[in-house]
């Protein structure tokens, strides 16, 4: 008996749908075993999980708060990964987005809200794009691995945030308010520059839908059109599939690398603007660095198989899971167990991806597949 994993030559149509559903079912099954082993009632826990993520009063509002930033970083990752450019730097690009957006908001103190918000979007996107351009240029001209460079630049970006707030009297630091003299903190943006929420009354105690989430949906639509309907997107598809064919067809690969890194960085930077405008209202290095939005975004993108609309859905689900995790933990339900549940969930769903691209064969000898491959 021999077990081997081989690449699928053809994907049946039902596969991309059945595999994730099966993975989720498997995840719940494993989690149930773990919960039973630790003496919890799995059905009760699942019910509570679902209710506190999507149904209870205020649950959806909290889920949106968790989902918005990872929707942006997920889109940023998906935009780059599609072209086999592994930009791991959404984390740092988002930090720079916050820096850019907060900076502009503080600069335009007297401006009307809409102007401020528009300027924050532009500044955040531009800052993220510039930061992403560094690994982009290194990749395009120096052939360095963008995985390493973009990852390392995340730490540089984090230290830069610390410097702005803790180690200098920068423009972003609050030097006037009484609480700021006790502990260094960022300067809050003017109220008019705070991004609004659309509130839906009457359902589940009112649902607050942040503007940032709306922007993320627009970005997703933009990316979809860009990749599927434009010349630019066509070139990206060819380059991702076969760089040699792209060169043969006269496509300029280097420029595309730079452009895609810029787009990816801009989307992450926009996420930073939304985080600052919608939720934080100031530059908070500690909180930003604890949340790991950028890295979660990579998971979101992988779960969504780099499809921008699926990114939004997955960000919403993961946001719900994160949000429910807070609600679930308590005296009889340790937070570690919540982490275990989330881990099993991600592990199963990402592990299931393997089955979409590969299949597992169990056979008696190794000969038959080899003959098949030779054909």
């Amino acid at each position: 008996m021999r077990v081997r994993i081989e690449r699928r030559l053809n994907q049946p149509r039902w596969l991309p749908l059945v595999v994730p559903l099966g993975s989720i079912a498997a995840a719940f099954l494993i989690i149930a075993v773990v919960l039973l082993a630790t003496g919890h009632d799995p059905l009760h826990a699942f019910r509570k999980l679902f209710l506190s993520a999507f149904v209870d009063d205020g649950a959806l509002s909290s889920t949106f708060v968790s989902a918005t930033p990872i929707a942006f970083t997920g889109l940023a990752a998906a935009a780059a990964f599609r072209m086999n450019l592994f930009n791991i730097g959404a984390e740092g690009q988002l930090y720079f987005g916050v820096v850019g957006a907060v900076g502009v908001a503080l600069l335009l103190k007297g401006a009307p809200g809409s102007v401020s918000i528009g300027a924050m979007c532009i500044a955040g996107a531009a800052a993220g794009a510039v930061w992403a351009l560094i690994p982009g240029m290194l990749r395009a001209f120096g052939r360095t691995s963008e995985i390493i460079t973009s990852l390392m630049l995340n730490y540089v970006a984090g230290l830069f945030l610390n410097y702005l707030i803790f180690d200098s009297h920068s423009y972003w630091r609050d030097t006037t308010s009484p609480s700021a003299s006790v502990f260094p903190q960022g300067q809050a943006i003017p109220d008019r520059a705070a991004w609004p929420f659309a509130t839906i009354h009457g359902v589940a105690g009112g649902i607050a839908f942040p503007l940032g989430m709306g922007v993320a949906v627009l970005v997703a639509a933009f990316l979809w059109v860009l990749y599927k309907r434009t010349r630019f997107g066509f070139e990206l598809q060819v380059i991702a599939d076969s760089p040699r064919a792209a060169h043969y067809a006269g496509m300029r690969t280097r420029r595309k690398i730079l452009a895609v890194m810029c787009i990816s960085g801009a989307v992450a930077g926009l996420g930073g603007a939304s985080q600052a405008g919608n939720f934080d209202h100031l530059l908070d290095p500690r909180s930003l660095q604890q949340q790991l939005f950028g890295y979660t975004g990579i998971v979101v993108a992988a779960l969504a198989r780099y499809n921008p609309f699926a990114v939004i859905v997955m960000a919403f689900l993961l946001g719900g899971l994160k949000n429910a995790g807070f609600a679930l933990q308590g005296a009889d339900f340790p937070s570690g167990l919540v982490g275990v549940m989330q881990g099993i969930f991600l592990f199963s769903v990402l592990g299931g991806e393997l089955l979409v691209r590969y299949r597992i064969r169990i056979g008696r000898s190794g000969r038959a597949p080899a003959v098949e491959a030779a054909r």
Partner: protein
Amino acid sequence: MDDTAHAAAASDGAAVAGRVAIACRGITKRFPGVVANDNVDFEAAEGEVHALLGENGAGKSTLSNILTGLYRADEGELELYGRPIAFQAPRDALDAGICMVHQHFRLVDTFTVTENIVLGDHRDVGRSFRIQPRAIERRVVELGERYGLAVDPRARIWQLSVGEQQRVEILKALYRDARILILDEPTAVLTPQEASALFETLRTMAAEGRTVIFISHKLHEVMAVADRVTVLRRGRSIATQRIGETSSRALAALMVGRELQGSDRQRRESFGNVVLSVEGLSADGDRGVTAVHDVSLTVRAGEIVGIAGVAGNGQRELAEAITGIRRVKEGVVRVDGKPLRSGDPRAAIHARIGHIPEDRLHTGVAPSLSVASNVVLKSYRDDPHSRGPMLMLRVIGERARSLIREFDVHTPGPSTPARQLSGGNLQKVVIGREFTGTPRVLIAAAPTRGLDVGAIENVQNYLRDAATRDVAVLLISEDLDEVLELADRIAVIYEGRIAGEVDAKEASVEELGLLMAGGVGSPEPPRSAGAGFAGTEAGNVRP
């Protein structure tokens, strides 16, 4: 000595000093769609260098893979020193003392020479838990001195030149005390100086009573090093001859083989103006060694010029240099007198050079994308297919459907991924695309390789059609029949140079065969160090 066996297998070859070391009797090996070895008889004696000569696809590699236990023959028998033997796995062949030096070395780049030599050796030293590097190093140095294979045993493989790496491979075989050594086109990666040093080593080994099987398609090397030669053609063993009793000319005729009837194609008597002119073109191969040397040629409107040659003599690099995929080091390519920008595929596209690339699956198409996307791979920027930044998907779909109809492409539909098409249908997509809007020049590189008979005929008809429509066609092919059948003029490429040019009507197979194998006819090229030719069939694979 076993004279009867000799007489059977080597009808016109005399017996050699030693006894028969390894013999194949009626070996047949089939792969889906091809018979790679067809009733091959072959034997090599102790103390001789025996060459296996043949064109690409003649079955040399398959035979050597059978000898080393990598494949098992479908029919026929192997005999080792007179005893029948069946290898279950490559290890059995190794244990029997048969070692092979592959074209692409089997070495671990980051290991030292000594480590590589011991690696996989499962006799006493290699098997023991603790290896004693000193003792092995001494042995390596000793062997190196004896056979003229000087190499630092402590150097790491990546630090060595390709020639030195090959020495390590041979040392590995000697260290294991191989009785029979098979070398697959060993000179492909060597400079002429290194090659002649290698020949000396091989002679030394033979003088000790070992058997050296030397696989090559180069006549002068075979003449220089071998005692006997077995010629393979289209999977069959054609003849075995003693080198002293044969000539390059006779071997070339055996290798290329067939007598060709003049094709019944009506050749054009007159052609248009010169459309494509290549002047003094030189270009580097993937390994950074010059692969195309000072090539000049012209193609007139309506003319088919064939470039014949054994694969790996710079054909791919030449096609890529003309079409801008590869940077030109020296020289210029002109279309209608206007020079093209070097290294810019788009310039070639704008000059309406159509290009059917050798590697159709990864260069000619983007395999995961749809047939429709591949139909517009080059024209997606142009007016009906895109407007402003947007693609006109409906127009593209229609274009794809009409190409599928016109060229009779068998595909479920325009949205099918290209990789699901058969080779012949894929080639139709490529040809259909390159014919769009009637090109001025068409560069067809190995356009029928790997296709079945029907598809070959289709492709050849398209090329003829193109010529009747006044396209200047440059056909680069290893298939001499095809070149003779289609071309009006034939240039032979050997080691990156044009070894000779003949009118197709007056071409003789013998003469072409000689030119292709670098036999005679071409003046000895000035050989600088490092002017060995790069770009073997898989030249982009680092050893």
